[in-house]
């Protein structure tokens, strides 16, 4: 028998994402540049990234959970809760800025941890658990804030939302940093490989010795943490803890993940893909803004892009499998 050499890994699996979504983004960019003279500029690109940062970070959390065939509907509410907790610590209790920062992250991670416990220990469906948390976190945010927006943050915290070191908006730096780290986590570590294996075939993952329950608990906590980071960014940008912040953001975040190639039923996800998915939506929104299209139409456009992206993906899959 002839011993053949090991074939090289295809580029897309070496990078950990598929190239189609990048094509869609470029196509969209070309169309927008053609339609609007203001589109192609560094400041406009930074604007797009800034507008995408919060949703993008949430989308990363969504990608991990959906990649493992779970779901997190509480992302937007937890974002709101995290902001209110952080703002309360700094404004009402007059604690230093970093306590507020840790408060945002901690509140997010804690909410995610509770989601994870309920999914893995109480064995409830993720849809129900996180739908419940959507209500609980939002309600808790309103209770803590007494239904009012908490104004007047520490300037250091405001810098996280509004500062521009080297001209780059701080939230963009956070977004790119989080994306790079989580891309490494999902595409290159055992943690990431096991995440997708669980989403692909949970029974097999368990039989192969993967600690499925422990892993899921970590994933929901991670998802909550991304909501905490997004909550921090939102709070810092508007210089306030707003208990209604992030309303329905979970849907946009999930859309970004799906457009980026995450399989809604698990087993496939990529953070670079989600990054591009979030950018596609950001570019679309930005472009339609530049063209002065009413925001109602923008919502329709994003819905249409979601359906189109999934259709494109399904067609490509069917062709591969045929």
């Amino acid at each position, binding site marked *: 028998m002839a011993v053949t050499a090991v074939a090289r*890994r295809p580029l897309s699996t070496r990078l950990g994402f598929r190239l189609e979504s990048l094509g869609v983004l470029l196509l969209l960019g070309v169309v927008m540049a053609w339609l609007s003279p203001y589109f192609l500029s560094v400041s406009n690109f930074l604007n797009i990234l800034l507008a995408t940062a919060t949703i993008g970070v949430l989308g990363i959390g969504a990608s991990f959970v959906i990649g493992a065939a779970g779901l997190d509907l509480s992302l937007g509410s937890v974002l709101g809760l995290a902001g209110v907790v952080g703002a309360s610590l700094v404004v009402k209790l007059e604690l230093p800025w970093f306590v507020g920062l840790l408060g945002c992250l901690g509140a997010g991670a804690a909410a995610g941890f509770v989601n994870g416990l309920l999914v893995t220990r109480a064995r409830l469906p993720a849809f129900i658990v996180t739908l419940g948390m959507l209500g609980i976190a939002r309600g808790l945010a309103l209770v803590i804030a007494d239904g009012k927006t908490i104004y007047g943050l520490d300037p250091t915290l405001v810098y996280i939302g509004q500062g521009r070191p080297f001209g780059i908006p701080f939230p963009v730096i956070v977004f790119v940093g989080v994306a790079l780290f989580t891309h490494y986590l999902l595409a290159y*570590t055992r943690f990431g490989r096991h995440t997708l*294996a669980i989403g692909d075939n949970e029974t*097999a993952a368990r039989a*192969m010795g993967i*600690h499925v329950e422990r892993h899921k608990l970590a994933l929901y906590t991670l998802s909550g943490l991304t909501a905490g980071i997004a909550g921090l960014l939102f709070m810092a940008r508007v210089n306030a803890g707003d208990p209604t912040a992030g309303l329905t953001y979970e849907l946009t975040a999930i859309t970004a993940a799906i457009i980026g190639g995450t399989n809604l039923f698990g087993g496939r996800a990529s953070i670079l893909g989600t990054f591009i998915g979030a950018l596609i939506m950001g570019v679309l929104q930005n472009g339609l803004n530049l063209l002065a299209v009413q925001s109602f139409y923008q919502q329709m456009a994003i819905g249409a892009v979601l359906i189109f992206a999934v259709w494109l993906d399904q067609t490509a899959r069917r062709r591969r*499998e045929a």
Partner: protein
Amino acid sequence: MSLLEIRDISKRFGSIEALAGVSFAVQAGEVVAVVGDNGAGKSTLMKVITGVYQPDAGEIRFRGEPITGLEPGAIRRRGIEMIYQDLALAPQQDVPSNIFLGREPVRRILGLFPVVDRRTIDREAHAMLQRLGARLPDIYAEVGTLSGGQQQSVAIARALTFDPKLVIMDEPTAALAVREVEHVLDLIRELRRQNIAVILISHRLTDVFAVSDRIVTLRQGRVISEERTAETDMQRIVAHIVGAA
């Protein structure tokens, strides 16, 4: 000392007694067939051995050490591999990822960041498939796009990559074409030659008689008979299975 000793294993699911005090042993390099009707407890017993289920009572010893209550990963590390009837593959991952699922080797970038060592995985997966004579169009294809026989090769390669001492096969020939069946039976003989023990679960008695050294019959969660293959015949085994003798 036997390689694997199963002593008085019992397992209930609610009011159903799946295993009621099962005992038998497997020696190194021996092929033991476990036969029985649907619901006789074969698959449950195997899942107890691999740690997927915890038994209610009884003890399992492997190479002289108790392994009862260990989790599946720990039992795999001790040298027991199982090829599941449904193959237990992750359909959207590629072939090397499936072969190393749960046991990915890791290297460190800059001595700091652990990453899955894909180059090693790809090389060893490729080498193992070559050794098995498996023909796959593309090892980077999603496993779900491969044919049934090709998927079976991936599951077998996964079971043999980590130098097991005991391989459990649950209905390995049920979904295969005649030529592929012969291939699996040859593989079992080859394992025996390398002193690797095999527990073969099969409905196909021709296969059982072709390769096994001993036949253990289960009925309603109990061991009904345990005979050397050379000293029994198909009629007797069928009688044991259906409870006519």
